[in-house]
């Protein structure tokens, strides 16, 4: 399932200066991700997972080090080029969902397509509906975020990341608020997307979830502690089937 290198980071550092204090969130991280890989990034809270993912998503730039996305040095791109990259190649699921308040689920999902001039009104709506169905949210199209549960909001955020059919999905604790069944459903969706050729980088706390991926990168204190290929990768579909049926879902 692996192909050419899609992500390449070399000795990436990220420091935040707050007044006189400097927080070193990433202290020299290097690894590559090949196209078609399903990588989970694990690590304790504050280990720099979000910081790393923001960088991979072209939202943030490293203080030091090189980040090549599809062999393009991201540092050399201007704001508009980065925006286009984010719009067409990357689907980002935020840890804090970041849905637009007072805006329906459907419109939230449509949002990335609004900034893609190649997509018309019809197609935009169709694709948003398809994405919401993929995360099992049909029937909630007109609900605004404050009318949705945390897990439902998270699924809207996932649908929004899928809608622009990116080559790469970056998810920051996308199952953090979901029950086991829904988590597995999301993971099964991710695996399906992955088998269709999408590269996935998935941040999680749960080793259970990491078991669905093909590789796990452990971060600790801003550094890569361990980078292991997952030999006995589980199928989320099977895991889902083996879950006891319950009425309360």
């Amino acid at each position: 399932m692996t192909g050419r290198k899609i992500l390449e980071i070399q000795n990436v550092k990220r420091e935040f200066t707050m007044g006189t204090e400097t927080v070193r969130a990433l202290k020299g991280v290097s690894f590559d991700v090949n196209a078609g890989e399903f990588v989970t990034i694990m690590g304790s809270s504050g280990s720099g997972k979000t910081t790393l993912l923001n960088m991979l998503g072209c939202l943030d730039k490293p203080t030091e080090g090189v980040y090549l996305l599809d062999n393009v040095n991201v540092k050399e791109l201007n704001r508009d080029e980065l925006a286009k990259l984010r719009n067409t190649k990357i689907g980002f699921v935020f840890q804090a969902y970041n849905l637009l308040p007072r805006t329906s689920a459907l419109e939230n999902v449509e949002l990335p397509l609004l900034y893609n001039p190649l997509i018309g009104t019809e197609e935009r709506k169709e694709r948003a509906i398809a994405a919401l169905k993929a995360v099992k949210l049909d029937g909630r199209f007109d609900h605004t975020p404050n009318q949705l549960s945390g897990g439902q909001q998270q699924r809207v955020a996932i649908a929004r990341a899928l809608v622009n059919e990116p080559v790469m999905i970056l998810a920051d604790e996308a199952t953090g608020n979901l029950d086991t069944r829904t988590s597995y459903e999301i993971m099964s969706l991710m695996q399906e997307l992955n088998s269709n050729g999408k590269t996935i980088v998935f941040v999680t706390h749960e080793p259970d979830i990491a078991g669905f991926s093909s590789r796990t990168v452990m971060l600790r204190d801003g550094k890569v502690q361990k980078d292991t290929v997952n030999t006995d990768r589980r199928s989320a579909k099977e895991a889902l089937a083996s879950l006891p049926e319950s009425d309360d879902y």
Partner: protein
Amino acid sequence: MKFVNLIRLAVRALQRNKLRALLTMLGIIIGVASVIAMMAIGEGSKQAINESLSSMGSNMITIMPYSNEPGGARLMGSSIQSLTIKDIDALEESAQHIAKISPLVSSSGQSINGAANWPTSIQGVSPDYLDIRKLTVKEGIIFSEQDLRSSAKVCLLGKTVVDNLFPGGQDPIGKIIRFKNIPFQVIGVLNAKGQSNFGQDQDDIIIAPYTTVQKRILSSIYFNQIYASATNEGASDAAVDEITATLRETHRLRTGEENDFQVRTQAELMTMLNSTSSMMTALLTAVASISLIIGGIGIMNIMYVSVTERTREIGLRMSIGARGKDILMQFLIEAIMISVTGGVIGVILGVTSAFVIPVALNWPTVISEFSIIISFIVCAVTGIFFGYYPALKASKLDPIEALRYE
């Protein structure tokens, strides 16, 4: 982002904060409404002045005694005496561009008819005067050349005088009234003319042969003024030149010596009054424009607040692919939407008040399309100008910092 979507987005954003949007628009609304109302009032009074001036006779020319002696005060009107029958004779003889001519001598005093009396003024003129001033006889006749020669004690009355001297509604024709104790026989009544633009009652007059007024009341050979009419409106300037040349000759003025009279055309008077009312309009419009600017600053203020409030939204939009330009347009169109919507409401209010003012305050108004177009352009420009900086600020935000903003 496509333009339609930008518009939809702006409409949504304004709908969400209806009251705030309305309050922000208020400055623009008041500004536009007052610009349109002011310009309507200005244009209305200008047209009213022109109408009433041309109803007084648009080819009318007035000649007044005038002196500008060095060291002395400027004097005007009856206090200097330079116009006599010689001037009239000379003008009648030589002038090519003058159709009608009449002297005017006037005197104020009490008019009496039995127990009724009324303070008014008598105007001594020749029959041409009625034509020049566009006065018409309602009943009776005008005095004749014979009456002029014999200084006949006959007169015509304006409506106000009739109403006051004949309160019972008797027919004044043939009756004898007294003015400054001199008996006059009423031979005619004038049609009412109403108030002049200067608030003067044009019907409060008694008209008599100038010879009668000169001899029997004033004991003077001088005229207060001479009224003439040019053969047509275009001939006014030629007539003025002619009059000036003729009068300089009859007054034996040497070259270099100043005129002891002044010639005025109605056209000049019109321009003068119009320039006054234009100045007033300009002034009022300037005041109204200031409120437009204040309205614009209000928009700028609210747009800054809005950008700050929606920092997270901006961050999110950017992180999923909005370019700086998209964000700039989003906020700019919102600002333009506020100002143009305010403009539309303002135009509606302004036009409405232009219809209400004549009824409520009895001021004439004329709505000019120009003022509406200008208001619209100014509104759009206000929106762009004052909306640009907040929008620019929004477009320059860093996505990740904006997302983290609290």
